[in-house]
């Protein structure tokens, strides 16, 4: 027998019974696995919303709507919160299934080999996603890749591995969950955490990490957000900043007295408007959030000229899209595109004021874009030119 010939190799963690904790149990793995399945699927779907808001598919009905105005704030807040909640769940889950890493014999047959070969994509991918994103929200980049691009493609790997894993576990998880309480496999004796104890502790850990971070986007809990990399009221004029004017190297250009907004491209009458001329146009006020992809958000009262007003003055066609160009000369977010819904929404403003004050240069002085239901990186600051396309 092969197994007998291999028996001498079963040493250390490969020994039967090497793992004594009673938390290495099927039911623990199943319950935590389902919780993670929910949080990861939530992360994936809300992540896709954010991705396609920034990289629209050329399919009209899938383009980002302009209302409800706070939708993206919610989906992205949920995205980051469910990622953070996954951290203690994943830690507990990895502990529950740790002995399987040392299963002996390592591979039983081809089917088992297939399932095991794909497990590193799931565990490695999950660890990769949660650890790198946590560093990203705190702006710590110890790696050489572009975080956003790697995050997006690795998400597909993780979700693919999750689909494989669900296929492999359906036969186990279903019966394990349907068992009535009395018929569940008797828990091993022990004086450490019980299964239920672990669920209580993991639930408490999820609550703890959520409550100490979610206030960065959910304002009622802002005073509890002790471990969040952002506070929704910390920043110039009480609003956080993603990229400062110094960081974007636009300080001089933004403060240039000769600054003027250009409206060009496919228009009947190209415009060039100074800051004073913009201030004399009809002003509109909108209460809109800045919602960052990194999970913080803050609402403010913005005041400025509706982009729709400028498009009409310039004689742009009603179905036109608009590319908003910043004064920035470098950076991946120096321009953004307004789809038709956003371009014509009355609350899409070229804002000159925030909460009754002239925009701070870090908020995009002399003029910035602010539109409903849109990722913060697309709310272009230090606007130089609207290009109708």
């Amino acid at each position: 027998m092969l197994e007998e010939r291999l028996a001498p190799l079963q040493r250390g963690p490969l020994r039967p019974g090497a793992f004594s904790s009673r938390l290495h149990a099927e039911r623990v793995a199943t319950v935590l696995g389902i919780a993670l399945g929910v949080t990861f699927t939530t992360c994936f779907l809300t992540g896709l919303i954010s991705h396609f808001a920034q990289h629209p598919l050329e399919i009209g009905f899938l383009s980002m709507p302009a209302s409800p105005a706070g939708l993206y704030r919610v989906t992205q807040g949920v995205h980051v919160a469910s990622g953070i909640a996954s951290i203690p769940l994943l830690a507990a889950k990895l502990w529950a299934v740790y002995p399987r890493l040392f299963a002996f014999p390592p591979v039983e047959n081809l089917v088992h080999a297939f399932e095991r070969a794909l497990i590193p994509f799931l565990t490695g991918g999950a660890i990769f996603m949660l650890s790198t994103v946590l560093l990203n929200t705190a702006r710590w980049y110890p790696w050489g890749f572009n975080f956003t691009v790697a995050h997006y493609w690795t998400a597909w790997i993780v979700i693919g591995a999750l689909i494989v894993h669900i296929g492999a576990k359906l036969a186990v998880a279903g019966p394990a969950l349907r068992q009535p309480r009395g018929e569940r496999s008797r828990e091993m004796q022990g004086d450490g955490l019980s299964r239920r104890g672990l669920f209580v502790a993991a639930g408490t850990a999820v609550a703890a990490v959520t409550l100490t971070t979610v206030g960065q986007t959910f304002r009622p809990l802002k005073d509890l957000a002790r471990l969040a990399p952002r506070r929704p009221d910390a920043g110039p004029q009480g609003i956080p900043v993603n990229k400062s004017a110094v960081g974007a190297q636009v300080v001089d250009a933004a403060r240039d007295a000769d600054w003027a907004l250009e409206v060009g491209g496919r228009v009947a009458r190209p415009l060039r408007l100074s800051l004073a001329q913009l201030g004399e146009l009809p002003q509109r006020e909108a209460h809109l959030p800045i919602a960052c992809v990194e999970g913080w958000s803050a609402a403010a009262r913005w005041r400025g000229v509706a982009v729709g007003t400028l498009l009409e003055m310039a004689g742009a066609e009603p179905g036109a899209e608009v590319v908003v160009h910043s004064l920035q000369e470098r950076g991946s977010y120096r321009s953004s595109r307004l789809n038709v819904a956003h371009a014509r929404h009355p609350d899409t403003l070229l804002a000159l004021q925030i909460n009754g004050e002239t925009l701070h240069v870090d908020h995009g002085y002399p003029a910035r874009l602010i539109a409903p239901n849109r990722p913060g990186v697309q709310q272009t600051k230090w606007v130089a030119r609207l290009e109708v396309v």
Partner: protein
Amino acid sequence: MSPRRALGGRAFWILGAVGTAVIVFGLAGLLRNAAQTVPSSWATFFVGGLLVSDFLVLPGVALAGVVVSRLVPRAARATVQGALLVSAALILIAIPVLTGRGRNPNNPSILPDSDYAGELAILLAIVWGVTALLLLVRARARRTSGPRSPTSR
């Protein structure tokens, strides 16, 4: 650990095929965008995360379990383990803000708190304060219900 049930069946193969296709799609995307995803750096962090978790962190948890079982009285063990889990979760999510690596002199709205270590210390004090309270209440309950009834709860 219950014996592993046999794998296979229709759902296994259908989801296995779909999932594998999605993994391949992701890997292909990474490689097609190699200029941005820098596969060598990506792989270092991907494999590195696995190795750190499997051969450093998880053995560390096992070791912590041994220490707890040696040092903590039987009656308090489970509660202490639970408190350790909650503490570990808080410490884990605090690491990036604690290092302060992301601080940027021209953007003080990033990591606005000047003392994340202090905030974490307060949170851990709350966790262990509640834990101590729980243990005290339980110990009292045990004493009043008599020392000879271990199944009183």
